[in-house]
């Protein structure tokens, strides 16, 4: 069994005000964020991740946007620091919200770079993105899943292709020359993780040999049982 330490690097000082206004996310103005306190918190959280490595824990990082619950706005930025400050821990990105990212090849580059930097310790989560972050990302919700799968396929192809460049002319993404440098250390790609609550997502992840991250909540379990 592996144990992963996960922190969203929350800005808890704003929670009381957020709860009073009815939301910790998206619509809570950032006047409720004190950058000086944020400076201390960010460094404290990164120190905690470094400590995990010393005591034998693996590390998980995620990202959210416009929210007091999670100050990690970029998985690659956080993991780049953590990769340099750790030696043994597996580094799980769970993950990059690729249905909200305009440039999947950039995601592939960043993930490959992290894998090389960390000596092949990256676990690569490709997630959809939280529904309430559709608005901050302003990505179209009408075709989110089709866009997710196209980005997913393109990222994995970009990471695993060694005789490029190749071209990509899909429904959502278009590239003339895809030929990423660096390519990942783990071949053909780092282990891929997905998140989901539906049986369908679980099935599609399993067909591809991915790891599924899910929330063991009672309601989700009930839904899954009904669908099964």
């Amino acid at each position: 069994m592996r144990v992963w330490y996960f922190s969203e690097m929350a800005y808890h000082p704003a929670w009381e005000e957020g709860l009073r206004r009815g939301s910790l996310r998206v619509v809570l103005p950032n006047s409720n964020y004190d950058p000086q306190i944020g400076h201390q918190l960010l460094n404290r959280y990164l120190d905690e991740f470094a400590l995990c490595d010393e005591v034998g824990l693996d590390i998980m990082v995620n990202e959210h946007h416009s929210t007091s619950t999670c100050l990690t706005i970029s998985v690659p930025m956080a993991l780049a620091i953590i990769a340099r400050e750790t030696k043994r821990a597996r580094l799980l990105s769970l993950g990059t919200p690729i249905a909200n990212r305009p440039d999947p090849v950039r995601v592939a580059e960043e993930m490959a770079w992290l894998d090389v930097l960390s000596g092949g310790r990256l676990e690569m989560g490709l997630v959809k993105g939280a529904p309430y972050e559709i608005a901050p990302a302003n990505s179209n919700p009408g075709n989110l899943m089709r866009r997710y799968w196209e980005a997913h396929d393109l990222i994995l192809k970009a990471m695993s292709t060694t005789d490029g460049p190749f071209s990509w002319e899909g429904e959502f993404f278009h590239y003339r020359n895809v030929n990423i440098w660096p390519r990942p250390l783990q071949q053909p790609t780092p282990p891929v993780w997905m998140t989901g609550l539906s049986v369908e997502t679980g099935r599609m992840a399993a067909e591809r040999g991915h790891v599924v991250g899910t929330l063991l909540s009672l309601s989700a379990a009930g839904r899954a049982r009904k669908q099964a």
Partner: protein
Amino acid sequence: MRSTACFSRLVLVDPLGVKFSGRDERDITDMHALSRAEYLKLAWADPAKGEVDFTTLPDSELAGIVRSREAFALYGWKPYMHNPRLKRWLHRIDRPTLLLWGAEDRIGTPAYGENWRRAIPNARLELIAGAGHFPHWEQPGAFVDKLAAFVDGNR
């Protein structure tokens, strides 16, 4: 809008689709950011008239509503409910044009309707009292009267 040859007159009812304001402002209320109750308050003069009891609808009709909502997002998400290239064509509408507008429409307000009127050379804006974004549903009588007067008569 390259040619109006097929038209004799034009009637537009609470239209969206054109942006008049600057990049820091929004002409059209963000319907996707509203709860159902908030939406009804802005889209109807009398929100009660817009209520739909979804629990009584057959699945086929519910599926239609959901698919329409999906299409609405698909085509109107970004840019939000407008085509940036449309405004510059409006001056070419050379037919008598009636803009019918719900006086209490807060999805696209009468002030937004006034921008439409100014952009179309031969246009008139008429407000329908007691109506929001859907005057043909909320005040069908007044709506038909104004429509008929414009289509049948000389303006």
